[in-house]
């Protein structure tokens, strides 16, 4: 990791004044997401998961950092690449793995799979298989908060690719005009499925688009969890105090292919290596925590073990769960 990158984080850790407990929890969540995804990859290779799935390895800091300032009452909308968001928002990994294995104990009783995990109880309004679809839904959820004076804030996750959908444009405008309590959080991982955002737009950064709606926006280093926390906390506060939406663009990188069938021809192995080597969000956070004496190497190893164990348990839970009975095909269609 470059000294420059470290410098920012070290400064922020003092500025943000976070409790050790919170920092450790976030470190743990990031590791948990990584282990979760690594395990899914295996399960997929073993043929235990079918269909498709989109891993977020390399993007753990945006998920965990953006969810940190949120209370349980606050809500998120997520994407096809949503496992990290879900875990960070407090969604139970047992039920997540069970869902991925198509089991009745899964969040969706096996009916939804990776792209439709939702957990209303912790404010997770759901992953989504349609690019940018979470933005209008989140806008509506924010409207409920405003109309019913519930005080909660909505944070919408979406990718760089999603910002070229009409739904992005219309939602940001509507949220701005109605001054809704919402944070639009873009994970710019440089690519859509294969389309490089540099080629899919003609602008320097996605954050410039905020100005089209009178929405304040900024671009941040999405692999520095502390920077993510800082920006999101400010945005959530704005929303909470009726100051309207914010657009955050967090730069990051997905280590894996888009989905399981991606030969990654649209980018170089060197680029990937560079990100992995010098810009791993977990390594970066770990270094900051170590340097600031928040955790030790031993603590980190322990967190790792614990996460591995938690995922193992989740896989066991899922594997030992029942498949849904065939008659559930026709339930849950109407209330």
């Amino acid at each position, binding site marked *: 990791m470059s000294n420059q990158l470290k410098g920012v984080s070290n400064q922020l850790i003092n500025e943000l004044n976070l409790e050790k407990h919170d920092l450790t929890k976030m470190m743990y969540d990031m590791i948990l997401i990584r282990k979760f995804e690594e395990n899914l990859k295996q399960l997929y290779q073993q043929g235990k998961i079918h269909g498709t799935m989109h891993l977020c390895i390399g993007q753990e800091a945006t998920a965990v950092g953006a969810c940190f300032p949120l209370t349980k009452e606050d*809500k998120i*909308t997520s994407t096809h690449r949503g496992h990290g968001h879900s875990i960070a928002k407090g969604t139970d990994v047992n039920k997540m793995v069970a869902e991925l294995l198509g089991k009745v104990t*899964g*969040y*969706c*009783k*096996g*009916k*939804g799979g990776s792209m*439709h995990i*939702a*957990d*209303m109880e912790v404010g997770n*309004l*759901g992953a*989504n*298989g*349609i690019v940018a*679809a979470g*933005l*209008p*839904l*989140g*806008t*509506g*959820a*924010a*409207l*409920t*908060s405003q*109309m*019913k004076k519930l005080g909660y804030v909505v944070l919408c996750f979406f990718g760089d690719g999603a910002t070229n959908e*009409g*739904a992005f444009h*219309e*939602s940001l*405008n*509507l949220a701005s*005009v*109605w001054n809704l309590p919402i944070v639009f959080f873009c994970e710019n991982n440089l690519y859509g499925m294969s389309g490089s955002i540099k080629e899919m737009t003609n602008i320097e950064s996605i954050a410039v688009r905020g100005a089209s709606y009178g929405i304040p926006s900024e671009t941040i280093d999405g692999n520095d969890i502390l920077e993510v926390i800082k920006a999101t906390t400010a945005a959530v506060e704005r929303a909470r105090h009726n100051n309207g939406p914010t657009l955050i663009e967090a730069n990051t990188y997905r280590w894996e292919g888009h989905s399981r069938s991606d030969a990654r021809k649209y980018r170089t192995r060197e680029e990937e290596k560079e990100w992995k080597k010098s810009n791993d969000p977990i390594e970066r956070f770990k270094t900051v925590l170590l340097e600031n004496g928040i955790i030790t190497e031993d603590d980190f190893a322990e967190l790792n073990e614990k996460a591995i164990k938690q995922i193992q348990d989740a896989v066991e839970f899922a594997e030992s769960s029942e498949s849904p009975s065939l008659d559930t095909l026709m*339930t*849950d*269609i*109407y*209330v």
Partner: protein
Amino acid sequence: MREISYSEAVRESMSQMMREDEDVYILGEDIGVYGGAFGVTSGMIDEFGPERVRITPISEAAISGCAVGSAMTGMRPILEIQFSDFVVIAMDNIVNQAAKMRYMFGGKAKVPMVVRLPSGSGAGFAAQHSQSLEAWMTHIPGLKVVQPSNAYDAKGLLAAAIKDDNPVMFYEHKMLYNVKSEVPEELYEIPLGVADIKREGKDVTIIATGLMVNRALEAAEQLAAEGIDVEVIDPRTLVPLDEKAILQSVKKTGRVLVAYEAVKRNGFGTEIVSLIAESDAFDYLDAPILRLGGAEAPIPYNPELEKAAIPQVHDIYQKCLELLNR
């Protein structure tokens, strides 16, 4: 009983429901002082204010998604799509989100919303403002689809639709907005899924939807003069569909005409025909199951052409004679 128009009935139903339940609100383009393209929401903003009668930008994708998002978190939105043709821009939210969310989430969400869709031809608005696309919606599990043919039904069905915990597509017909009929002042509900036998008869069954119900009734009057006794069934809700009422009538008369305004090819009438053709009522049929639907053409502007594009009273009359080999 007092008579009010279809459009007043819709407004009254919304207003009464909004007085009863503060979670109900309406959103759409130009629904404030303008009163919406067809004046249906006239005056509502005065009573309920701009918070509950929310004028939106021209952004069908966002406003439909916003309706879904607010419905899944506790509100009961009524979304007015200015002309039902513009629903094309809102389809993702209706079809991939609202309709499927409960199922995809394993029963852990509900989306109580009503989408009001002024549809149909007859006003000279041409191809992009005159469609009847309700059949699309009936093809999507998770949606309910309602199509009232008069003011009384409109009021009661809309109340039921607003109270329903599922997304309901509510098709209003532009040419019916000014048609008056007797409507009680108090709020009442007509349950979704119950057909109405608009006229009893024993010789021929006409199953008609929307505007065609009225035309079928007119044709039935003319046929009565010839001694032909026509039964007219108005399903009122296409999903859920009152199959029993339809099949009973078919068994009674043995002769069926299905009449709808939408493009004939793959209009909702084809589902009704198919239901009959695969059922035990098949054995009671004394004649082919006839259909009348809109021409397989976009709706033209010229008034005579426009008229020729959808079934008229005389067409219905003729088809009934044909069913009786007369």
